[in-house]
């Protein structure tokens, strides 16, 4: 099994046909840190996560996972990545246990049933383990989806708008889980525009606008005020000039 201490995106650009989704994005995310990708809708956050997840390849630039590259080590890299998307990636007809056991098996884990039971315990959903996922509340489904994303103990955790539709209790539980992942040495990258929940959580914030990085801040504070001032700036043109 491969491992890595950092993920480095270098000059990454991506186009969908003639539309530019990302333009020359460069950053490094390290072990034991949470990186936030912040920006309005259409800024390129989800595209960046899809590239990091190896679901797409950049039109230009490269992404390195430590010494590894997704063009040569695609499957072993995917084994070390956990993704929680905007959609939950769960089969609604199956129970939480069946979903988790299925994905544990797909990741080649030994004793998928035991792994699924342990994951359900972490999610606090043992008593709902045999109900179909479709009968669970949004918060419960999100907890199952998070356990699915983390089932193989990934080094890189990618979360796309993870706080959407969660009540305060579920959002606080998710925040706690992210802090725990950071403490255990995971590289966590969160794309969100929920700045209040991201406040105090991020080690680094990357502000994206129209596919470009317009600002980066280490240990950012007062995220909403920073975000407003950045987004109020005049739009840079193609050459990067204001």
């Amino acid at each position, binding site marked *: 099994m491969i491992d890595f201490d950092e993920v480095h995106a270098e000059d990454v650009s991506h186009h*969908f046909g003639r539309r530019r989704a990302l333009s020359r994005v460069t950053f490094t995310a390290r072990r034991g840190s949470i990186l936030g990708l912040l920006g309005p809708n259409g800024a390129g956050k989800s595209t960046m996560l*899809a590239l990091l*997840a*190896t*679901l*797409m*390849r950049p039109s230009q630039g490269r992404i390195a996972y430590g010494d590894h590259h997704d063009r040569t080590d695609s*499957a*072993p890299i*995917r*084994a070390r*990545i956990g*993704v929680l*998307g905007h*959609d*939950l*990636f*769960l*089969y*609604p*007809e*199956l129970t939480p246990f*069946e979903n988790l056991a*299925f*994905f544990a*098996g*797909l*990741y*080649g884990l030994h004793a998928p049933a035991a792994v699924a039971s342990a994951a359900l315990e972490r999610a606090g959903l043992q008593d709902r383990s045999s109900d*179909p996922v479709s009968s669970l509340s949004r918060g419960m489904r999100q907890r199952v989806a998070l356990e*699915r994303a983390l089932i193989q103990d990934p080094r890189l955790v990618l979360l796309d708008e993870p706080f959407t539709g969660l009540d305060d209790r579920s959002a606080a539980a998710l925040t706690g889980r992210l802090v725990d992942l950071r403490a255990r040495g995971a590289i966590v990258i969160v794309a969100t525009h929920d700045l209040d929940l991201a406040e105090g959580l991020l080690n680094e914030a990357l502000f994206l606008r129209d596919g470009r990085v317009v600002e980066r801040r280490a240990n950012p504070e007062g995220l909403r005020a920073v975000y407003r001032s950045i987004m109020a700036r005049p739009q840079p043109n193609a050459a990067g000039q204001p």
Partner: protein
Amino acid sequence: MFMRTVWLIVRKDLTVEVRSREIAYTTLFFAVSCVLVFAFALVREGVPPQGASAAVLWIAILFAGNLALGRTFERERQSETLRALLLAPASRPAVYTGKLVGLVMLMSAAEVFLVPLIAFLFQEPLLRHPFRLATIVVAGTTGFAAVGTLFAAMLVRTRSRDMLLPLLLYTITVPVIIAGVGGTSSLLQAEVNDDVVRFWTVLLVCFDVVFVTIALWTFDAVMAEQ
């Protein structure tokens, strides 16, 4: 790991289907309706046209199979679970094979009801050579599903998938359907010519080998998001 992934996906697809019974009911209902329409249109005064049952069987398989294909991948699209499958380190050809095997099993289950129904309505000895017929039907279904699984997966994120899938699928699987009709018709003759039956069966198996090989080869590239 390849066979394990195939087994996991087949088991998952069948469990989902047993819970929802969505594909089973829709394909069976559609196929039976199709057969009944043909029976009412073609059977005159209780006398069916000779050899029509082979064509009716394969038309029902073609239409019902298209319906099943669309639903199988629509399910994976609804919760973006197809993305989850592609994010796993599992071999993508194994993912394809799992989807294909699951689909062939679902279609075969519908065919188990269809064949006796057609034999009864068209009064033809379809079940006179059950093993030979099963070989031809399973081989034809596999060829059809092999192309269909690839295209359905490829078109899953396309808005016009409902229009494009039958268009592409019917065009490419015409040889499979012709061979299926040819093989089934040859079993309905009063004196079955073994060489003719063997020819159509081998032809269907050749189509299967070609289609499955091309699909396994291209599935990884086809599933890469643009």
